[in-house]
C-alpha cells in the first residue's frame, strides 16, 4: 500500500524542514529542563514558602504561649487561694482540740454504723453555715491526708484537687490525651511554683511558660506538603523563648487594658464579675494576637499568595508552556508546510501529474504521504522523548517531574500533532490550490494554537493573581485543550479519554482526506 519511490521523494523533499524543526525543538526542550534543574528559578517561590512556614510556626508558638500562660496563671491563682484557705483552716482557724473532737466523733459515728453522709450530718447539725463548710472541708482533707497538716501535705492535696478538676474540664472539650497532658503540665507547673519560692504568680508564669515551651517547640517537627519540617531548623531555643515571652507580656498588657476598660464601663461590678467578663474575651484576644501573616491579609490576597507558594514552576513550564504551546509551534509549522507539500502543493504545481501518470493509484499516493507525515512526527517525538529523558537524568531530583510523566507528555503531544496533521492533510487533499489548502488547514491550526495561548491566561494552572477568568473561553474552541497536561502532571487519568478523542479526530480527518482525494477531479 506504500509507494517506495514516493515515500523517498517526500522524505527527501521535506528532510530540511524536519531536521530543523526537530533539532530546534529538542534543543529548546533540553535547555528548558536543564535550566529549570540547574538554576534556582524558584528561589523567590521557595523563600515565600519558607516565610509562610516560619510565620506559621511563630504564630503557633505565640498562641500556645498565651494559652498556657492563661491556664497556668489562673490555675496558680486558684491554687494559691485554695492553699492559703485550707492551710489557714487546718492550722489557725481550727485548734487541735476542735480537730480531735471532729475526728473522734466522726470515727465513733462510723463505728456505730452511720454512713459518711449521716455522720457528717450529725456533726454539722445546728451549726452555722460557716462551720458546716469548715467541718466538711476538714473531713475531706482528713480522709485523704490524715492528721498531717504540714505545708507539703496541704499543697499536695490542693494540687491533686486542682489537677483532677482540670482533667475533667479538658476531657470534656479536648479528649483524653489533651486532658492528661494538661494535668501533667499543670502539676509540674505548680510544683515548680512551690519550689521556686516565688510569691507573685503572674511574674512566675510569665517566666516559667517560655522556659518550658522553648524545649517543647525546639524538638517539635511536623509535615508540610510531604516534607518533614523541624522547628529547630527555623528557630533557636533562645528565639523561641523570646517569642514566647514577648507574646505573654503583650498579652498581659492587653488583658490589663481590657480590664480597665471593663471597670470604666461597669463601675458597680465586683472583681469577680469583671474577671468573668474578661474571661469571655480571652479566647478572641489570643486568636487575634496569634494571627499568621496570611490570616491578617484579605482572603483573596492570602489565597493568591498560598497558591503562589504551592505552585510547581518546573512542571508548569515543561508541561503546559513547552509541550502544549511553544513545543507545538514548530511541529505545527512543519505539519502545515509538509501536509501542503505532500498533496495540494503537488497538484497545484502539476508535479502530481508525474506520479499519477505512472501506475500508482491515488489511494496509494495518499496513504504513502500520510505514512510519511505520521512517521516524520513519530520519529520527531521519539527524539524529543529521548532528549527529555536524558536532560532529566542530568538534573534529576532538581525538577519535580517523573520519567513516566515525561513519557505521557510526549505521547500526548504526538497524538495532538496527529490530530492536527490530520486536519492539515484533509485540507491538503480537499483543495487543488496550495493557497486554499494552506489557509484553511494552516489557518485553523494556527487559530487553535493562538486560542490555547490566550486560554492559558484563564486556565487554573496560572496563579490566580494574574489569571483572567474570562480568557478560559478560548480553551473551548481549541482542540489542543484536549491535550490535558494538567491531568498528566497531577497524575489523574482524565487525559486518557481526551487523547482518545484526539486520536479519533486524526483518524477521521485522514480517512476523509484519502477518500476525497480518491474521488475528486484533478487539474493535471
Amino acid at each position: 500500500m506504500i509507494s517506495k519511490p514516493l515515500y523517498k521523494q517526500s522524505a527527501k523533499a521535506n528532510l530540511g524542514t524536519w531536521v530543523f524543526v526537530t533539532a530546534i525543538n529538542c534543543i529548546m526542550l533540553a535547555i528548558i529542563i536543564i535550566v529549570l534543574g540547574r538554576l534556582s528559578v524558584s528561589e523567590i517561590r521557595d523563600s515565600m514558602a519558607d516565610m509562610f512556614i516560619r510565620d506559621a510556626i511563630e504564630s503557633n508558638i505565640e498562641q500556645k504561649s498565651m494559652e498556657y500562660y492563661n491556664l497556668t496563671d489562673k490555675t496558680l491563682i486558684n491554687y494559691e487561694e485554695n492553699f492559703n484557705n485550707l492551710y489557714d483552716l487546718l492550722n489557725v482557724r481550727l485548734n487541735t482540740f476542735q480537730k480531735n473532737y471532729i475526728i473522734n466523733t466522726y470515727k465513733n459515728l462510723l463505728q456505730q454504723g452511720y454512713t459518711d453522709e449521716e455522720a457528717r450530718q450529725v456533726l454539722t447539725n445546728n451549726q452555722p453555715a460557716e462551720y458546716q463548710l469548715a467541718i466538711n472541708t476538714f473531713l475531706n482533707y482528713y480522709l485523704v491526708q490524715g492528721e498531717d497538716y504540714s505545708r507539703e501535705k496541704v499543697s499536695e492535696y490542693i494540687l491533686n484537687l486542682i489537677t483532677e478538676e482540670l482533667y475533667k474540664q479538658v476531657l470534656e472539650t479536648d479528649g483524653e490525651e489533651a486532658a492528661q497532658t494538661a494535668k501533667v503540665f499543670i502539676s509540674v507547673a505548680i510544683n515548680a511554683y512551690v519550689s521556686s519560692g516565688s510569691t507573685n504568680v503572674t511574674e512566675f508564669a510569665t517566666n516559667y511558660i517560655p522556659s518550658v515551651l522553648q524545649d517543647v517547640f525546639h524538638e517539635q517537627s511536623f509535615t508540610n506538603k510531604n516534607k518533614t519540617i523541624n522547628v529547630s531548623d527555623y528557630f533557636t531555643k533562645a528565639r523561641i523563648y523570646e517569642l514566647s515571652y514577648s507574646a505573654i507580656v503583650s498579652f498581659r498588657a492587653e488583658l490589663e487594658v481590657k480590664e480597665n476598660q471593663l471597670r470604666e464601663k461597669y463601675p458597680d461590678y465586683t472583681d469577680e464579675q469583671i474577671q468573668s467578663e474578661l474571661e469571655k474575651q480571652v479566647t478572641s484576644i489570643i486568636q487575634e494576637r496569634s494571627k499568621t501573616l496570611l490570616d491578617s491579609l484579605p482572603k483573596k490576597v492570602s489565597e493568591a499568595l498560598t497558591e503562589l507558594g504551592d505552585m510547581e514552576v518546573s512542571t508548569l513550564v515543561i508541561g503546559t508552556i513547552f509541550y502544549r504551546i511553544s513545543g507545538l509551534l514548530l511541529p505545527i509549522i512543519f505539519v502545515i508546510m509538509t501536509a501542503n507539500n505532500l498533496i495540494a502543493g503537488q497538484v497545484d504545481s502539476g508535479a502530481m501529474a508525474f506520479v499519477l501518470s505512472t501506475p500508482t493509484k491515488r489511494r496509494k499516493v495518499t496513504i504513502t504521504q500520510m505514512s510519511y507525515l505520521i512517521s516524520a512526527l513519530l520519529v520527531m517525538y521519539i527524539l524529543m522523548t529521548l532528549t527529555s529523558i536524558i536532560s532529566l537524568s542530568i538534573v534529576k531530583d532538581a525538577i519535580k517531574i517523573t520519567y513516566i510523566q515525561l513519557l505521557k507528555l510526549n505521547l500526548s503531544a504526538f497524538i495532538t500533532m496527529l490530530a492536527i496533521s490530520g486536519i492539515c492533510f484533509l485540507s491538503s487533499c480537499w483543495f487543488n490550490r496550495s493557497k486554499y489548502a494552506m489557509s484553511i488547514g494552516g489557518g485553523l491550526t494556527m487559530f487553535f494554537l493562538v486560542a490555547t495561548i490566550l486560554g492559558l491566561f484563564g486556565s487554573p494552572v496560572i496563579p490566580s493573581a494574574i489569571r483572567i477568568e474570562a480568557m478560559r473561553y478560548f480553551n473551548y474552541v481549541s482542540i489542543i485543550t484536549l491535550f490535558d497536561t494538567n491531568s498528566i502532571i497531577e497524575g489523574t487519568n482524565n487525559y486518557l479519554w481526551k487523547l482518545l478523542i484526539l486520536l479519533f479526530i486524526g483518524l477521521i480527518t485522514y480517512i476523509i482526506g484519502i477518500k476525497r482525494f480518491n474521488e475528486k477531479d484533478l487539474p493535471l
Partner: protein
Amino acid sequence: MEKVIEIKDVTKDFGNGRGIFDIDLSIYKGEMLGFIGPNGAGKTTTIRTIMGFIKPDKGSITVKGMDAWKDSARIKQFVGYVPGEIGFPDYKSGTDFLKAIAEFKGVKDLSYANYLIEKLQLDPSANLKRMSKGMKQKTAIVASLLADNDIIILDEPTTGLDPLMRVSFLDIIKAEKAKGKTIFMSSHVYEELEKTCDRVALINNGRIVDVVKLDDIKNRKVTDFKIEFTNRDDYLNFKRLNYQIIRDQETYNQVTITIEKDRIKMLFNDLTNYQVKFIAEIKYTLERHFNELIKRGEVI
C-alpha cells in the same frame, strides 16, 4: 482496426458554457491523432479525462478496453504522458527526477532514456528549479517516454521548445510512431500536426467540430488558383469560360477558381489566349480547412 482509446459521448460541464460536450473520438492502434483547437476549447480537459484525472459527467472512456476513471492506475502501465503545464516534484536535479520516474514506472534499463536525452540535447544534471522552460519541457518529455509505453499522450508538448528542438522532438515522435505506437497529441501549431499526424481532430467550444484524415487534405482532387489579368477585357472574357469561380475581385481583375487536378492542363491551354499578370496555386492546408469549417459553423 483496433480502437486503443475510445471516447464515447463524454460530457464534463464546468458551467458557464465551459467544459467538453458529447465528445466522440476514437484513436486506433498505431495511429497518430492530432488534437487542435483554440485556447480554452477543451483539449486539456479531454486529455485529463483520458488520463483519469477528471471524472466525466456522462459518457465513457476506455483505454485498451479499461475504464479510464476506475482503472486509471492500471492503464498507466501502457501510457506515457506529457502534461500541458509542467511542475516538477521536489528533486534536486533532472537526473534524480528521471531516476525516480523510472522507479515509479518500474523501468530498470535507462538506455532508452539516455537515447532521448542525447537526441533532445538535454543536460539532466541541471537543477530542476533553475531549468529554462525548454529544458523543463525536454525533461518532461524524457520522463514520459522513458518507459517506452505503447500509448503516448502529449498535451502541447512543443510549447517552449525552440524551432530546432521542435524538429528533434518531432523526429522522436515520428520514430515512436514508426515503432507502431499509438499517439495522441494536442497542439495549436497546424504545421507540426500536418507533418506528423494521420488524422486531426478539431475541437471548438468543447465540441468536436471535425476529424479529418490528412491524406484527404493532401490528396484533394481539386486545387485552387488565383489569376490576375493585365487588362479588363481578358478578365471579363475568362469569366465567361466554364470555370468554377470561388472568389472574384473586380477591382484587381482577379479571380480565384477551383479546378479538378486533371483539368489543369486545359486551364493552361485556355490561359495562353489571355494576358496573365500572375497565377498562383492556393494550397489547401489543415488550417484553411478548419478556419473555413469554423467560419461556416459561425454562420450556421
